[in-house]
């Protein structure tokens, strides 16, 4: 599985890491970091940097909780210093499992291309379920015709 670092306001990162292990089982390559009210930007960056270094040269994906937050700002500072680091904002459980499971190539351009696809797909999973449940009645499920 890919190396993933979560950085969130408060304990969200630890909570979602636990939710993730509920689905995938134990994930050793996942680390959960938090900032609190009194964490400075410098401290947040330092924390991220130390964690990234612990993975060596291997690709690392940082996921932050909200684009407009200091978590993403700290990630952005760190991003510019490394060739092997990727930053995605908008943490949710579907996005996290995809980012852990999808195999990433060594080539940075190809890697970015795959990450772009994962982000797009994750965006599409945010759904107003009422619209699906209350929509037009579906056509009868086709029966024994052998088609999928």
């Amino acid at each position, binding site marked *: 599985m890919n190396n993933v670092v979560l950085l969130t306001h408060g304990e969200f990162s630890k909570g979602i890491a636990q939710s993730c292990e*509920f*689905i*995938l*089982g*134990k994930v050793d390559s996942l680390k959960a970091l938090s900032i609190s009210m009194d964490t400075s930007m410098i401290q947040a960056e330092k924390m991220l940097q130390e964690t990234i270094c612990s993975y060596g040269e291997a690709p690392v994906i940082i996921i932050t909780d909200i684009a407009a937050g200091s978590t993403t700002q700290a990630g952005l500072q760190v991003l510019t210093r490394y060739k092997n680091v990727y930053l995605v904002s908008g943490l949710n459980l*579907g996005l996290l*499992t*995809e980012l852990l*499971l999808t195999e990433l190539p060594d080539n940075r351009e190809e890697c970015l291309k795959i990450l772009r696809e994962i982000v797009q*797909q994750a965006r*599409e*999973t945010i*759904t107003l*379920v009422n619209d*699906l*449940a209350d929509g037009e*009645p*579906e056509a009868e*499920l*086709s*029966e*024994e*015709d*052998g*088609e*999928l």
Partner: protein
Amino acid sequence: MITILRVDDRLLHGQVAVAWTNYYKVDVILLANDKMITDKTMQTAFRLATPPGITLSMKSLDGAIAVINNPKHASRRIMLITRTMQDAEYVCGKTGEAVREMLLGGLKSGEGKKQIDMNSYMSEDDMAVLERMEQKGITVFMQADPTSRRLDSSEIRKNYNK
């Protein structure tokens, strides 16, 4: 081809949709259940649970049999899912040697059932199905998610007879 047959009381949920489909690299999830094909809420729930890039096919037991026996899908990697051991046996009985591996998990508790694994319980009849599946040359095992411990059929039997 049927890459794996999963027997799971909830049919399709997070562990199956995310962890097992990734583990087996499947591109089709084939749900075989007679109740589901008339239950719109179940259908909506399963559509939501299907990961991007995977085709979901919801069929009655006989509908699933027709899919499996259609040579057109031979190159697809299909995860077949039934709710019970009995449904699984019915499908396997009419699809020749299409199913080679049977993965049990999330078998709910009930009257006369014994606990086999943390979240799985089996009845005497379930055990009889297991025997018959093995006689057909199908490998039967139990595992909740890909990183948890795999119980082979001898361990399933041992836990049942405890």
